[in-house]
């Protein structure tokens, strides 16, 4: 115990002396939270589109109004499509809608339907999808108005009543913020420990430590505990900022949230230790930490991209990513509440990976002796 305390003291001093630890634990989380809280949003509401109004009959004007009234679009109305084709190429508009000159004429005929064309810029598929969907919405509004005008009862018979549970306003900020906590924890856990321990190997101070009376277990614990405390402090800061600055609701219990974070941090730290013991070189350690820690946390955790939509081999791969389980826990604890089954299942997975990597590191440190 005495030796362990000595190790902790050494590690704490190292942390305090190196400004980069402070950068990682305080500055980086704040930067990330700010970016995800304010900067990044998947809620699209200022799509720039053009409307090519070749027809000026009342019907066409009414459609134009339903499009310009849509809150999702900033519409630029032109008469000729040649005016805006270069804008689409340049990316200044996300798409355009064409009401052809023969639109109202065709509407009177019963044989062929009158077409309205929507051209979306496919070079950004997600935005293109929104352009098409929102135009469809505006088109529906137009149709409903037409029916009312003609005094017909044939509104769409089946109405959909959508309810978005747990996030009624559909704020993407809510799930992005809770997910970004997982990224911050991964960064602190895997990247910081990875670099720190790799540096000790690179400089040979690790061998010096190993040649003392310290056992490998003590050595690992001596490394982990200070960073664990650092990570938890950072996590609590992040939670408070999310709650009080970004008004993220916390519907589950605060203590459960801390508990789950502790389990994940344990896991991330073990992975970081393992990577650095394996690589023993800072550049390589940081690259591996990036590949096994940070990137998966970003891409494969389901925080931004839907896991279910990924191809099968990659979907299987996500089961090996501790961040996946953490993201699910975070989103649930913040937005839904304590769902015992889900939290317990995910925590067990994280615990398993944590213990696995911890034992692997322990074994490989022993071998080095």
């Amino acid at each position, binding site marked *: 115990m005495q030796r362990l305390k000595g190790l902790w003291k050494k590690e704490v001093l190292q942390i305090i002396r190196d400004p980069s630890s402070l950068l990682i634990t305080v500055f980086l989380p704040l930067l990330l939270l700010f970016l995800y809280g304010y900067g990044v949003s998947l809620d699209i509401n200022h799509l*720039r589109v053009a409307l090519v109004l070749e027809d000026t009959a009342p019907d066409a004007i009414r459609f134009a109004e339903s499009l310009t009234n849509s809150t999702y679009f900033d519409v630029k109305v032109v008469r000729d499509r040649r005016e805006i084709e270069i804008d689409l190429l340049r990316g200044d508009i996300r798409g355009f809608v064409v009401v052809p000159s023969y639109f109202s004429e065709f509407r009177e005929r019963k044989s062929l339907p009158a077409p309205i064309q929507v051209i979306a810029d496919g070079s950004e598929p997600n935005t293109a999808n929104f352009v098409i969907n929102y135009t469809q919405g505006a088109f529906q509004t137009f149709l409903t108005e037409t029916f009312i005008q003609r005094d017909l009862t044939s509104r769409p*018979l*089946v109405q959909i009543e959508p309810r978005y549970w747990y996030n009624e306003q559909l704020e*993407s900020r809510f799930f992005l913020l809770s997910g970004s906590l997982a990224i911050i924890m991964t960064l602190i856990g895997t990247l910081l420990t990875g*670099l720190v321990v790799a540096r000790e190997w690179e400089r040979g101070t690790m061998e010096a430590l190993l040649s003392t009376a310290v056992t490998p277990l003590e050595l690992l614990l001596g490394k982990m505990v200070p960073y664990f405390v650092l990570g938890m402090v950072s996590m609590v800061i992040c939670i408070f900022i999310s709650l009080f600055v970004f008004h993220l609701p916390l519907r589950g219990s605060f203590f459960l949230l801390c508990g789950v974070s502790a389990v994940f941090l344990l896991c991330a730290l073990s992975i970081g230790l393992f990577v650095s013991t394996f690589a023993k070189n800072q550049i390589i350690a940081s690259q591996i930490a990036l590949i096994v820690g940070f990137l998966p946390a970003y891409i494969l955790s389901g925080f931004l991209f839907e896991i279910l939509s990924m*191809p099968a081999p990659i979907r299987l791969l996500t089961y090996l990513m501790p961040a996946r389980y953490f993201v699910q826990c975070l989103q649930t604890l913040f937005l839904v509440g304590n769902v015992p089954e889900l939290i317990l299942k995910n925590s067990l997975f994280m615990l398993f990976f944590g213990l696995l990597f911890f034992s692997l590191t322990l074994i490989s440190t022993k071998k080095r002796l």
Partner: protein
Amino acid sequence: MILSLIKKELLALLRDKKSRISILLPPLVQLTLFASAATLDVKNVPIGILNRDSGEEAFELVQRFHGSPFFTKIIYLQSVEEIAPFIDNQRGVMVLSIDEEFSRKLDRKEEATIQVILDGRKSNTAQIVAGYTSQIILQYNEDFKAKADLVEENSILMPRSWFNPNLLYVWYNIPCLVAILSMLTCLVVTTQSVARERELGTFDQLLVSPLTVRQIVIGKIVPGIIVGTIEGTIMLLCGIFLFKVPFTGSFLYFFCSLLVFVWSVSGIGLFISSLSRTQQQAMLGTFIFMMPAVLLSGFATPIENMPSLLQPVTYLIPLRYMLLISKGLFLKDIPLLLVLERVWPMVVIGICNTIGASLLFRRRIA
């Protein structure tokens, strides 16, 4: 003299097998992983259906969900009480709830409502799934009215997507990743080479050599530019041949823009390395620069969605312009004029970066 310094830098970088792999491999792994996993498409999402109506119309509607290519996994719920645990435990993203009156109301030609409950935790997925659902219902409405002779409407919306007709996400990811990962490679090479020499103490040897500071600066920047551009070219080829993304524009324009782009970021690399004392700090600096640069470049979300205060900041990020060039040359075959329109801001940023960074570099090492 500069040439031999550049040669020495490149050798230091590429001689060691481990560091060779660690510089060339990760971007390729990231490209593959990102290209196949990072998709905002939604497919194969399990949904639940609670059908409390025994009529023919409800059955018909459920069948349409079975027939839809978007929904491959449909789970049937038996009671309203099952909805909450189903959503809470994320067994599915959506529950479609049809009440007892549904068919009866439709038979009487009255308006019938179906409830759609979505998991707001994943607001993006939920919205897209809701979009698919309303498409199915819309079609159902049309067909039902046609059958019941209620048709009145005679106009139709015809959506098309240019440049990427099937809206494949890979076609978007690859052009963006080529730019992002070239930038990352260049930054890692530049920052690490200075930091490593500082940590090992060999940097002082360089300073006492007859090389001027300007020559040292050039010697440190050029390898990053070379490796970044080569990496970018390898990834471009991967994108075209491995992922089959069409490249419609001119290779010459692409190559020149890539070179300008990588050069414009290399100044930032020098900047980071003059501020950091250890490799660890250099790595962190790279990271702290990369995160906001990528997030604000318009890669993750459209720039017009960002708060208006942040939007001007994006003009300072070279990646913003390179993304447009890369996407434009891959998919849109943009003319030289449009390429130049994006290249000149990068040139301006590049000049400022290089001059600023060299000044700082000179002061820090003097």
